Every structure is written in C-alpha cells, then in structure tokens.
C-alpha cells in the first residue's frame, strides 16, 4: 500500500477523526475494514483504493462541515453517489475520506406548474420521474443506470442516456446547483428559471467530476411526458448497415427521441438476462423511438418505416404495447450488466465519433477485436455517435487486463482520430486520464489544471481524477498498473 497523503500525518488523522465525531454519531463514521472494503471501487472494478473513512451525512450542514474540516486538515475527499461510475470516477482517494451521499435522498421541492424539482444529490435518478409521473411530467436524462445512480453522480459526469438525442444530457436539465466548494465556501449557481444572465456557472460545475466540490442541492427542469411513443426494432445482417441506417434517419429530417444499436453479443447477453427476444440471427438491431403528440408521431411513422425499409433491415417490428416497449428498453438498459454473463470482467468504453463515421468506427473496432483476440460487445447511443464497446477479459488470467486496456486505448484513439471524443457521458475518471492529452493540446490541459488549482489549490476534492495528473492514481487489485510499469502514470 502506498504511503498516507503527505499532508495528513498519523497524528493529524487522529485529530481529524476526533473532529469528525463531533459532526457525526459513531454509526455514521465507518472505519473498520469490513465497512470500508465495499466502498473501494465503483462500476469499474479493476481500480480500487481504500479510504481512511466513510461518512454518511444526512443534512447539507453536515456535508459543509465535513468539507470544511477536510480543508482544515488537508484531507482529500470524494463525494460518492451510488458508485456506478464506469470510469473509476467514484474510486476513493487512497487514505482519503469518502462522503457517501446516499442518505441525502429527499426531494425538497416540486413545482408542477413551474416544471421544476429541487432535490438532494443522493436522490436516485429514476425516483424523480416516478415522483412527478402523476402530473404527466418526467425528468428526461435516462442513463441505463437510472434505477440506481444518483443525481449528484449525474451532475458530476453530465450523464446522458438513450433519450439524449433530442433533449440533451444532465447539463441541459439542471437549472441550478447549490454546492460547497473544496475550501468550504457555499455557492448558489443558476436558479429556477430556464433563462439566466451572466456566465453559465451551473454548466461549468456539471461534468466537473467532483473536482469543484460537492453538490448539496440540485434544481431540475422537468418536461411534459411525451403522449405517445412509437418504438421500432429493426434487424440487420451487419453492424455497418445498422450504422448507416442511423445516418439515413437523420438525413430524412426526423428527430427521433432515441436511436440505439446492439450487436449480436450484447443481444445475447440481454436476452439471457431478461428474455428480451431479439431476432435470433441478426448481426445488429437498431432501436428507434419516435415520441411526441399522437398526431405528430402518427404522421412520422410512415416516413420512419420507409427509411428503415430502404436501409436494408430484414425484420422490422414495432412495440405492440407499453409492456413490449418496456421490455425492449429493459433489455437495452441491462445490456452492460448482462455482459457479466459472458465475461467475468469488462471495460466499457464511451468514445464518441461523428455520426457519419459510425460504420467506419464499428468496422475498425471489429478488426481490432480480431487482432487482439478479445471479444468486444457493442451497444450504443447511435444517434449521438456515442459508442459503448465492452471489452471483455478475465482478470484472473495473467496479462488479460493489460491487453484489454491496450485494446481500449486503441479504440479511444480511434475516436480521437475520427474527430470525436474520448468520452460521451461516463466521464474521464481514472481510466481515461492519459488520453485527455491526445484529444486536447498540452496548453488546454494545462489550462484545465489551472482551473482546478484556482478552485482547489490543495487538490482535495476528488484528487487524481479527470485530469491527467502525475500523482495519486488509485491502486490496482494486482500490484502496479501496467501503465505505471511503463512509466505512463505515477504514484506518489
């Protein structure tokens, strides 16, 4: 294990915990091994780090006091939602403090007429939509992890989902944020109006992966729920054809709510998980969903059908009813986890490519997969060009993780080469930091470091994430990280 953070000596830690126990009752400060171990990693289990403690705040004031205490003691900290990050973003800082936000899960205010809800950051994404469903409203961003992940985590990562083509990501649905900066200062960003004046600080906070502090309260924008959905599943004999179909739909002038593609492997996995019933011999299935008023959707349907038929789909099937639609989406949304049935470990990539280069990217991934001899399942937000290649490996095999990471790296570079991004919605976290410099210039990266420094000179908040820092990466289950061995990343 690495040394304690330089700033926090053993003596300091004792004093720190003494102070901490003035904020929390004993049962809300977790320190023994059995309590800490389950907080060691997030949805990307190849990274792990043991915190020195976990606290379970129940009020905003407790969070504020905790952050101020951390600042005083120079104790690095991380806020944690449901730990579903797929990029290592929620991995603790070695010997730092974890602020687990899960008990801060109240919906503080809901105004149907103003189409807003004010929630605590520990509120589960899907709970918001459930809460407002009675007024036929919903909260649009729908990450597949919606039943699990928290609004705080969504804010940190600017999370998206299948239905982001039309209405955008978390950032487009958050009007205001109350946050505590890493030095303990409290700020109110944005407000409750769709419009604002002055620089968009709310937008800047969102997607900052916890580097700018802890969100305490989030004002969400709600939308009227579309009256009608029309969900179409089209089967193709090649992934490429499905990719091209997406471009054709876009060219037709239609603006579907969602366009998703699953390849054979991910269909098999989702089928095993929930019996989704995908066409047995299809190489790829495209899910397109129209949404809107009944009149509009019904007028769009024939157009969509003609485009899909022209695209070479050999089975076209529309959801029969709500239950069928739910099944299609449940299948799609369980795909990541369901891949656990095919492989004990996997890395989910999240690169974005220009939509017109989708087919090219998919073909190249297939080639790379063959070259490396590693299975890669593909399930992705095709409408946004946001790929999710799932690189499968067995962590128990010597060198398997290393090889999987190499392949992942090639895929990330491919996305950069094609003019895209290294991450569409899962964030940089720990996993993609070393690629940020390939997407942005050195100057830009340095600028980002300076922004972090300006807000958090001691790098207390989620130290070591998002930016390609030269210090403090998390520990790997099995000794040094391969990139560490190569000298690409370092530990201090």
């Amino acid at each position: 294990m690495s040394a304690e953070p330089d700033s926090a000596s053993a003596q300091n830690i004792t004093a720190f915990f003494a102070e901490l126990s003035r904020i929390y009752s004993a049962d809300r400060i977790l320190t023994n091994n059995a309590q800490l171990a389950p907080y060691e990693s997030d949805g990307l289990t190849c990274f792990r780090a043991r915190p020195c403690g976990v606290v379970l705040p129940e009020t905003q004031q407790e969070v504020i006091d905790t952050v101020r205490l951390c600042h005083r003691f120079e104790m690095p900290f991380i806020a944690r939602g449901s730990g579903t990050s797929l990029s290592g973003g929620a991995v603790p800082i070695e010997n730092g403090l974890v602020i687990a936000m899960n008990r801060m899960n109240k919906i503080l205010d809901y105004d149907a007429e103003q189409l807003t809800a004010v929630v605590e950051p520990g509120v589960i994404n899907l709970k918001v939509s459930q809460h407002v469903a009675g007024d036929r409203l919903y909260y649009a961003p729908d990450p597949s992890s919606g039943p699990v992940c928290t609004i705080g985590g969504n804010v940190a990562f600017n999370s998206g989902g299948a239905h982001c083509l039309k209405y955008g990501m978390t950032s487009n649905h958050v009007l205001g944020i109350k946050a505590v900066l890493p030095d303990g200062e409290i700020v109110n960003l944005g407000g409750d109006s769709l419009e604002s004046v002055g620089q968009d600080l709310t937008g800047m906070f969102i997607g900052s992966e916890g580097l700018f502090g802890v969100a305490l309260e989030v004002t969400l924008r709600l939308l009227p729920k579309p009256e009608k959905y029309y969900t179409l599943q089209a089967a193709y004999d090649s992934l490429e054809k499905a990719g091209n179909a997406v471009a054709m739909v876009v060219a037709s002038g239609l603006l579907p709510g969602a366009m998703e593609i699953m390849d054979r492997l991910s269909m098999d996995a989702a089928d095993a998980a929930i019996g989704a019933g995908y066409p047995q011999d299809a190489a790829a299935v495209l899910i397109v969903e129209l949404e809107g008023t009944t009149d509009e959707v019904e007028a769009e349907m024939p157009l969509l059908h003609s485009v899909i038929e022209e695209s070479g789909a050999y089975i076209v099937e529309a959801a029969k009813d709500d239950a069928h639609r739910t099944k299609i989406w449940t299948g799609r949304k369980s795909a990541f986890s369901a891949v656990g049935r095919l492989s004990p470990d996997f890395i989910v990539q999240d690169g974005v490519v220009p939509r017109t280069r989708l087919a090219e990217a998919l073909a190249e991934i297939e080639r790379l997969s063959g070259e490396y001899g590693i299975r890669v399942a593909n399930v992705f937000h095709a409408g946004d060009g946001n790929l999710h290649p799932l690189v499968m490996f067995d962590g128990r095999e010597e060198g398997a993780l290393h090889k999987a990471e190499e392949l992942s790296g090639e895929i990330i570079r491919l996305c950069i080469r094609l003019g895209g991004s290294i991450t569409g919605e899962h964030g940089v976290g720990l996993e993609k930091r070393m690629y940020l410099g390939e997407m942005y210039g050195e100057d830009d990266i340095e600028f980002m470091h300076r922004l972090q420094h300006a807000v958090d000179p001691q790098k207390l908040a989620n130290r070591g994430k998002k930016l390609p820092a030269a210090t403090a990466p998390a520990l790997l289950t099995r000794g040094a990280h391969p990139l560490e061995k190569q000298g690409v990343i370092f530990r201090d």
Partner: protein
Amino acid sequence: MQHDIPVDQIGPLGLPMAEAVQKCVHCGFCLPACPTYQVHGEEMDSPRGRIFLMKEVLEGNVALDEAEPYVDKCLGCVGCETACPSGVPYGELITAFRATSETKRDRSAIDKTLRRFILETLPYPGRFRMAAKLGGVGRIFRKAMPGRLGDMLDLLPAKLPAAQPLPEVFPAEGERKGRVALLAGCAQQVLAPDINFATLRVLAKNGIETVIPKQQSCCGALAAHTGAADQAKQFAKQNLKAFPTDVDAILTNAAGCGSGMHEYELWLRGEPEQAAAEEFVKRVCDVSVFLAKLGIVAPPELQTKTRLAYHDACHLAHAQKVKSQPRELLASIGNLELVEIPNGDMCCGSAGTYNIEQPETAAELGNQKARAVISTEPDVVATGNIGCMTQIETHLSNVVFGKRIPVLHTMQILDRAYRGEPLA
C-alpha cells in the same frame, strides 16, 4: 469481478461461491431491490457490498467477525437476484457462505443461546408449540427478558389454535387426476394449521390426492439460512428418504420451505446424496405452480365484491420466480378485484428468523410494507408464506387502528371461495 478466492481450500462450496462472485460486475443494479439498503443506505448493507465483503472474507482480507454484522443483516429475500442482469446466484452465495463461516464465527453468549433456542425449537412442531405457549405466558415477564428474546415473544400469538393432526392421505374429490406429496411445514402447522387443511381441500376439489409422509422433517431452510449446515443436511437427507418418488410433484405451501427444498442439491454438494437431491429438486414446486399448470375448477362467484391485495413472498417471487401463478389462481375467483401493492418487490422484513435477529430493520420494513398495503385499500390480503402473513398482520395492526384487514394464505382464499364463504 476479479477475485482470489482459494477455491480448493474451501471445500465443495468454494466453487459455487467463487462463481457467484465472478459473475458480479459491481454495477449496483441490485441496490434498489435490497430492503436493507433501503433502510440503511450504506454499501455494506447492499447486495453488491455483501458480495464484495464475502469475497474479501474468503480471500482473507477482511476478518469474518467484522463482516458478520452485515452478512447477518441480509434477509435472504433474494430480491437482488431478480434485479441482477448478470445472473449472480446471490442466494447460493449467501447460503454457502453462511454454511462455511458458521463454524468459524464467535458469537456472543446471548447470541448463542438465542440461536440454539431458535434452531432447536422452530423446526420441531412439538417443541415450537410448547415454546409458543410459554411465549403467551412469557408476555407477562416481557420487561425482564433480554431485548431480542422479548421482541421475539411479541411476534408469537397470545393464543394458539388447537393442534390438528394431519391425515396420511387426503383423497381426491371425484375422479382422481393426480397424486402429490405435501411438505407440512413446521411453524405453519403450529401457528396456522388451517393453511394445510385448506391446501388439502383445494387440491382434493381439483381431483388431486395428497399424501403427507409421516417421516418428513423440517425442510431445513431455517438451519441453512442461519448457517447451521449440518443440521440442514440432516433434514434434507431425511426428506429425501421420507418423500415418495411415485408422485406427480412434491408440493410446498410455505414459500420459505419451497425455496429451501430447491436448494437441497447445493446443501448436499459433495455428499453421496447429491445426485438424488438433484432429481428431488426437480419435483418440488409450490402448490400454486402445480395448480396453475393443472388448471383449476372455477370457484363460485363471491357474494360481495372483494378487493384483494396480493403480497409477493420473496421466497416465491424472487427465489422461485413464482409471480404469475398465484395471481392467475386468485383471478379465477369471480367478483374479486386483484390489486397490486406498490413497490411490491420489496421484502416485508419477515424472512425466517430475521424478525428475531434483526428486529429494528425487520420492524422498519414491516411498517413500510403495511403502509404500502393500506394504500391499496384492500378488504383482504393474500400471500403464499406463513412468515409474511404473521409479519404483515402484526404491522398492519401497528399502522391502522380499528379496522382489521385479514391476511390469508392463497390456498385459504381459494378454499373459502370454493366453500362459498366470505373472504373478509
């Protein structure tokens, strides 16, 4: 998930545990399904956290006694299994883990007494009856009892129904269409003997003859789920012998027993009886599954319109994946309106001995369930498990005063319907 579990050193249960851990991808989809996570909101009390903890204990990174409180808090409701897209057999993992760790753990004196008391009483109808009677008396001394024993007494009825011996064979009415064997259940026999009789009558009504093997023992679930592996094995072996093979099915009418019997193969891993257990398990099913498949004689319409809320017992819905069959059976009753309980997948907090071992969590879950039930404004509640019945009844009376909502077994409902009796 990657692991270093020394499979070979653990024995026959090492492999199933390692496989379960390996399948978990740490995605957290099970979190919202877990009752203890709902109550405590901390990772150690979630399925994902427990899987990780068990892995750490098996790998030797975390001491068993540190992990125990969290493993113990698990209800074994396997709601997490239903929620898990990756197909992690959580139920197998926790049962195996409890079996392998029990011998190593160091329980406090009071814990030991309590646990011995439970394990030596509940599985034996005679002893349980005795204890329950004492319980009624014990109420007077409630204050003097150590906390959890006292809590346990609260759950026992003040007055027990009269003991009714079960016949060895219960003949079919009219033409015999099939023959089954029934597990009588231990606590159920004592607390609500009517459930078995109702079951027998409903089966008979549908042309089924039932045998109730005299030599049968407790199903062993209670022992297995509290880590008393040897006792569980003994029970399983005895039942393998006691139940005939020339029946169409071996039926259970208590969800907990049914799911326990489905685990016989796991319990007897590495034992000479393993193969026999595998065969046995194939024939075990819940009475509702058997009847739904058979297709039942439609009961006469109810005299008064009745709203019935069906509660999914975890050991039916999650452990045995039985959700539609009881509903189908109930829906065949005319003038009965079947309503769904919101958040119905969530455990009521009963779960075997949970009430006794984790009273606070159990009470919180019980109250949550009671509130959910009441929100549907039912005339009557039906479920397929005696544990849930007791739990829901207790908490319903905690939450509402005045109007009593009866809680009945699905078979009792059918039986009453056949006999033209009102349900509520």
